[in-house]
């Protein structure tokens, strides 16, 4: 589903964020990417949906070499990928509903259908009562769940989640991980970046460990 071949990423300023990364995630797999802060986890996820371009190397997603993708084809790649951002990336002047609905609205899906789907996904993340709230009035954990709902509302083939439990208390962490496992069982490929060692040891999945921008072998 996702294949990286000799990927290098250098940001304009600063040293190399990723160096010679080759890895593969199978269709339907659940994978953790871990490593200390600054290891390159976020960068690695960003490359997978072309939020950043690799400096060198090839990335194949869903059968497409996305490093060679025409810009006009990019939206259609992203429609298959749900992303939970480390910094949430919510619109703070929009309600929770509008934030989640955005994923569907850009596809031109009818309003009625959007309403139904948004309601369902908000119920799954336990925020149905905050439908009309502005994200600014929500706690960090609630904002995180809004961003999870937005990523999942379109039932993507791939879910990329960057520290999705970073702001959640243990109970909610369990809920969110359960949700991820559920959609994984339904066929969604899940990639979770986290520096939380407890999370990794609790949920026994394949783990890719990064250190200073390289895959570590231990």
């Amino acid at each position: 589903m996702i294949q990286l071949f000799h990927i290098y990423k250098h940001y304009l300023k600063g040293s190399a964020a990723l160096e010679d990364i080759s890895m593969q995630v199978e269709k339907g797999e659940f994978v953790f990417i871990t490593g200390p802060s600054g290891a390159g986890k976020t960068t690695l996820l960003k490359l997978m949906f072309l939020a950043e371009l690799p400096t060198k190397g090839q990335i194949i997603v869903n059968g497409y070499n996305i490093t060679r993708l025409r810009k006009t084809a990019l939206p259609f790649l992203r429609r298959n990928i749900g992303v939970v951002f480390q910094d949430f990336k919510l619109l703070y002047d929009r309600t929770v509903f509008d934030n989640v609905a955005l994923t569907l609205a850009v596809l031109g899906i009818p309003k009625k259908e959007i309403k139904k789907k948004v309601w369902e996904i908000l119920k799954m993340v336990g925020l149905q009562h905050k439908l009309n709230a502005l994200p600014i009035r929500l706690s960090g954990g609630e904002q995180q769940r809004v961003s999870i709902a937005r990523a999942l509302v379109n039932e993507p083939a791939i879910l990329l989640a960057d520290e999705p439990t970073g702001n959640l208390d243990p109970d909610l962490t369990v809920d969110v991980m359960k949700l991820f496992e559920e959609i994984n069982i339904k066929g969604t490929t899940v990639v979770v970046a986290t520096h939380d060692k407890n999370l990794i040891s609790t949920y026994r999945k394949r783990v890719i460990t990064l250190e200073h921008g390289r895959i570590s072998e231990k």
Partner: protein
Amino acid sequence: MIRLIERIAYFISTTIKGIKTNLYLNAVTVITIAVAFLILNIFFMIYRNVNSLLGEWKGKIKIIAYVKDGVNDQQIIIIGNQIKSNEGINSVKYFSKQDALNEFRKELKGQDAILSGITQDVLPAYFLVTVKDSIITGKAIGKVVSFLKGISGITDVQYGEGIAERISGLLIIVKMLGFGIGGFMLFAIFIIVSNTIRISIFSRKDEIEIMKLVGATNSFIEIPFILEGMIQVVAGTGLSIVLLYLVYRIFMYKLHQNLGSLFVNINISFISKETMIALLACSALLGFAGAFASIGRFIRQSY
């Protein structure tokens, strides 16, 4: 079909939302454009009215070529043919000394005292020449006149008072000024619109970024901005036409008030309907171009 309608509704409501968030900026843009177009429209009006004035004059342009005394009938025919041979000439009519006197009498009807001493011999025979409309512009009349002067047997040439010539000269200046100012205005409006849209884009930067990340196509993001640009210029032009109409009414009112009966039948017309439609269509195009320029730089290039 329902999808299409929903989509259009989405674009319109997003556009309106966008205008609302930058209401002040949008208002300033529309007013600036209105003022720019007002100036342009005043030129249109001047041009239109001077042009129609010229049209009235065109039919009245007459050149009189006086014939030397003692030229015989045979020579008159030769001279007449010579005049006709010039391409700029529309019609030629010969007035003998007797005809000239008759015309003179007609013109001075009721003022017989002046006519009493005048006999046929006093007035010279002449050719009354009218020129083609196309000749009236520029220096063409002068050429015709010197052509007539060059014919042997013609002593003197008189024509109008040069008014038509002067008007057409003025018209060319108005036209050139109009083009110059018009071109500058269009360029200025283009810059203004693309700047306003750029600001509009920047004020929704986060939203655009997220929309891209969840898979919105560029055109889906861009259409509301394009509509916004088009609305700005069309609204500005519409406003300028309204302003122009007010200026026009006030001007006409003052004109009649101050000059009274002297200019009762002076007729200054407003810009034509066709001009208005053309202006609005150009505005839509200009708004599109201005918005498109900003979109190209600020939406298309990012990932």
